[in-house]
């Protein structure tokens, strides 16, 4: 696959995920102009503190029209970036940079105002850096980096569960489930999911085995640091992990799968090699 085609594939997949995510936020009334927040929180993130220090959150609350402006920019900037790419066949440095920086700011504001943590969406910001430059090498570097980052998310999650001792606590999952679903359990239990939570809480060994399996699945992503052979398997492990996370923990991490799609793309090295081969064939043809 040559560079142009590869870039187009990444671009299409990214913006399909991006607009789908924005759409889900819109239909769930989670965009800033829909929430129209009247207070903000400190989440112990220094970048967020910097944003708060500039007075922007306070200014936005005083002028709620700014929430709508922010939401519009969230859609308009990438649309302009795409239109420019379709029209000129290349990225605009200014539009690419504006989009990446604005996306970072929006994610920070979303957490400041609505406590929408950035864990599932941060990778959108990292991937958006690929659309700043038109040169082949920086593009592939960002893609490589994001693939590594996606693997690191899982691996570090497993690492900290081991390093901080959670994995050695036989009652860990049972206790987590109790805290996580207290409001579901206390208001009367009739659904299959709720009865499953109760069963797992009452059977700590079984729930611990589930936790351990989760840690092993997360740790298995370390293999991706050394080889790309198992990327497709890792992709399906990620899908399975997030499906179980949604069912057992009621946590929706699916937007992060924009990073997972990098596991389905051919390796950057192979792509480069094929691209070079194709240009050699063309030159020979001339």
């Amino acid at each position, binding site marked *: 696959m040559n560079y142009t085609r590869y870039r187009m594939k990444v671009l299409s997949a990214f913006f399909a995920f991006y607009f789908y995510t924005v759409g889900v936020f819109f239909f769930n*009334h989670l965009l800033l102009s*829909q*929430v129209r927040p*009247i*207070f903000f*929180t*400190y989440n*112990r*993130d*220094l*970048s*967020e*503190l910097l944003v708060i*220090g*500039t*007075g922007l959150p*306070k200014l936005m609350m005083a002028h709620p029209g700014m929430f709508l402006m922010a939401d519009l920019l969230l859609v308009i900037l990438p649309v302009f970036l795409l239109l420019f790419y379709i029209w000129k066949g290349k990225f605009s440095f200014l539009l690419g940079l504006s989009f990446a920086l604005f996306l*970072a700011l929006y*994610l*920070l504001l979303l957490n400041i105002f*609505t*406590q929408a943590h*950035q*864990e599932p969406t*941060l990778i959108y910001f990292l991937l958006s850096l690929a659309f700043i430059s038109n040169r082949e*090498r920086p593009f592939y*570097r960002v893609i*490589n*980096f994001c693939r590594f980052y996606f693997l*690191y*998310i*899982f691996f*570090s*999650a497993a690492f*900290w*569960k081991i*390093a*901080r001792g*959670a994995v050695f*606590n036989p*009652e*860990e999952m049972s*206790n*987590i489930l*109790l*805290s996580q679903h*207290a*409001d*579901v*359990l*206390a*208001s009367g*239990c*009739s*659904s299959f999911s*709720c009865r499953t939570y109760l069963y797992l809480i*009452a059977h700590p060994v079984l729930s611990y085995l589930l936790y351990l399996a989760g840690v092993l699945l997360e740790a298995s992503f370390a293999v991706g640091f050394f080889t790309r052979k198992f990327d497709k398997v890792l992709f399906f492990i990620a899908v399975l992990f997030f499906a179980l996370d*949604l069912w057992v923990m*009621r946590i*929706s991490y699916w937007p992060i799968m924009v990073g997972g799609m990098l596991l389905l793309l051919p390796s950057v090295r192979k792509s480069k090699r094929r691209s070079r081969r194709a240009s050699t064939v063309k030159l020979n043809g001339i």
Partner: protein
Amino acid sequence: MHKKPFLYFLIAFFFIQVLIDLAHSVTIFPFIHYGMYSESFKRADSLEIFEIRVNGQLLRAEDFSIAEWDRIHGPLSAMEKQEATDDFSFDKEKIRRGLGKIGLEGWWGATNFRVSNDPQLSFAFASWYKHYLAVVVKHPIQTLEIEKAWYRPANGKFDLLSKSRWITL
């Protein structure tokens, strides 16, 4: 040869990431933790639950999607934290001291208005939440009551320990 700068960038990024991970309580976007549920969880003696009554009817988690229930609960947890921490005064004091060490204490003092929530927020929150909740439950709200209830989990059941009224509209 051309791969080295990328390798250095990767090493630097992950080095900072690990440092931030080790710092535990503080992050610097885009270096954030993925360490949810990695601390050893002890069984809670009591669990706090928000009991929300709309037009006299108790809202049940099972009647809402995960996203809807998160929307119902999210602002309440955030507001409770805001009240319990006296508008995050501990964090603000830490920042003031930190900035003082680099000679910027005055700047933080001058921006105090910009970095603090409205002192009358608790009153405004109740009516804001009522409007916000009406969108989630998809019908107008005449009365809204929110109580904080503490339960003790025992053998798959929840024994009520105490309740206190929080919001009534």
